[in-house]
Structure formats: structure tokens, C-alpha cells
């Protein structure tokens, strides 16, 4: 599969190298080339300088042939906008969007984006971990 990842932060870089190891064709887009230092030396995909909320940059990254677009920058609004470009302008079959703000995440999920809120996921995870420990203690 051809995967385009916007944002080469910790998550972006790690996800890119995981998908690359699995043999997918990966392109990582970031508007700061310094971020590409996070990619491992073994990374076989493409690291491309560019702003993901720009249609031209998405085209250069090969969005027209992409199977999946994932937005992982720090900015919720940037992620939302780039995903909507990928979905509504370039008709990418699968578009995934990280949105920290749970309220915004719910709204865009209703509007048809595949969204993940790390805030919600992580808070839930912590709660479950604590509950499990308590259950064990009670046993």
C-alpha cells in the first residue's frame, strides 16, 4: 500500500518506520526537515519537505495514488484541514486524523473522518490500568 504521513514527530516517525518495515511504500511529509532526524537509518521510504495543508505539497507527495493518508502534526486544525483535502479533493480511500481535542474529534468523526483522539485513548487506558490493579488487589 502507498501511505502518506503528514508530520514527522515521535509518532509520525515511529509509525513511518513500522509501515516501512512491513514493506509498504511510505512518504513522510514535514515542513521542518530537522524532524526527519527521527527516522531510523534503515528507513527506506521517502522524506519530503512540504506543508501538508497545501494541495501542491500533497500532490508532490503522490496523494493521487495514495491508499492511506494519516495526519499526525501537533495542530488539530492542521490535521483536520489536510485530511479534508485528502478526502474531498483527492478522494484518498482511507484518511486518518489525530485530533487531541475530544470535542473536535467527535464532530469530525460525525462529518466522516476517521479520527483518533490520543487524549481520550490515553486517559481511558490509564483508568483501565488502575482499575485492573485494584481488581487484583481485591482478589
Amino acid at each position, binding site marked *: 500500500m502507498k501511505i502518506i504521513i503528514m508530520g514527522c514527530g515521535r509518532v509520525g516517525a515511529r509509525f513511518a518506520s513500522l509501515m516501512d518495515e512491513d514493506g509498504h511504500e511510505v512518504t513522510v511529509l514535514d515542513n521542518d526537515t530537522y524532524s526527519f532526524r527521527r527516522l531510523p537509518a534503515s528507513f527506506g521510504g521517502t522524506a519530503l519537505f512540504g506543508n501538508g*495543508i*497545501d*494541495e*501542491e505539497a500533497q500532490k508532490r507527495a503522490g496523494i493521487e495514488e495514495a491508499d492511506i493518508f494519516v495526519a499526525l502534526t501537533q*495542530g*488539530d*486544525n*492542521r490535521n*483536520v*484541514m489536510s485530511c*479534508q*483535502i485528502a478526502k*474531498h*479533493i483527492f478522494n484518498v480511500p482511507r484518511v486518518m486524523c489525530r485530533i487531541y*481535542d475530544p*470535542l*473536535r474529534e467527535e*464532530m469530525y468523526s*460525525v*462529518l466522516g473522518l476517521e479520527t483518533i483522539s490520543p487524549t481520550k485513548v490515553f486517559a481511558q487506558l490509564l483508568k483501565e490500568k488502575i482499575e485492573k490493579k485494584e481488581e487484583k488487589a481485591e482478589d
Partner: protein
Amino acid sequence: MYIIVIGGGRLGYYLLKALLNEGHEVLVLEKDSRICRTITDELGSVCFRGDGCEASTLAEVGTGRAGMLVAVTGDDEDNLVACQVAKHKHNVPRTVARLRNPQNAILFKKLGVDVTISTTDIILEAIEREVPTHPLTQLMSIDEKGLVIVDVKITPESTTVGKKVKELSLPKESKLALIIPNKGNAHVPAANTVLQAGDQIIAVTSPETKGALQVALRGV
């Protein structure tokens, strides 16, 4: 009408002033507390500190009863999200977004933003108008009709000088509205009107056929 303005920068500030003068109920949402304080000191309590992209902030300022939301921050993505939240969470009937990148107009329209204003385009148009040698100037765009009004200058080099209007092969989307000659009064072009060097032709056309219209009017 109750109008909410997102972004208290220079544009937001002057927009706020203008709308207040017109007698509207206006509120600016601004993230920066310093800017917010300056506006409040000067114009009274018309600035609320908060993120205009957050549904809860918009709920707090009563966006549900707003007739219009205008997003004029310097970032296209923030303006887009503010308009979308206003539309989908608070049913604001009219949303207006400022654009930095003119290319985003199509996307914003597709996503339900009612009006987009590209400051870059407006400045470019104004500059083009001041460059005397520019053969075609866009005077205005009528977005909802998909038309633009342009001004085409006929120069002595134009191969169409001396030709009649009916001899021109104009794109079918184009209509000539007015000819302003070098000397004398402006007139409405008829089929037998002869083009002369120094004529300024005001025409209506689609944005896509601007180039073709220029070629038809001036020759190659």
C-alpha cells in the same frame, strides 16, 4: 444582527470597528490576552478571550443565536475549523472565512463555508490594476455566479484594431459590457462597433476563459 468575529488581529480589529459603527452586535474571540485587553480598553467589552475553534467556547458566547461568523485569523486551517464548528455545532446560517492561500477557496466551499475572501487575491488584483501595461485586469469576482468582471486594454499592437465586434471569436461564456475609448464617452458595444487602439473593454466572463477572452480581444 449578532456577528462573531474570530481573530482580533489587525483585520479583526478594523472589522469589529466597522460592524459596531453599523450598529451590529459584535463579539471578537481572541486567544491572546494582551490583544483582548487592548480591544476591551478601547472599545468596551466586545472581546472574549478564548479559542474560536472550540465548540465549548462558541457555546459560551451564544453562537447559537449568531447570524454570522467571520473567521479572519492569519491561518487558513483555523479559519476553516472555526467556520465548520459554527456551522455544524451551532447552526450559524452564514460563515465567512479569510484565506491566505487562494487555492483553498474550492476546498472551503466544498466543506460548507459560505463565503471565502482571499486577501492575497485582492491585493494582487489591486496591484495589477496599477500596472499600466497589464493587458487584462480582474476588477471583481462574482463567486456565487462563477463569473468575473475584467478590463482588457486594446493597444496599438493588438491585431484586432480596426475589427468589428462581430468578427471577434469570443468564448461563449464572455459578454462585452462596455467600451471606454481613449477619447470620448463610454459606449455599449454593438455588433458593428470597431475596436480602436486605446479602448478599454469591460467584459464579463468565467474565470477559466479569462485567457481566451484576452486572446480574442487583442489577437496574438
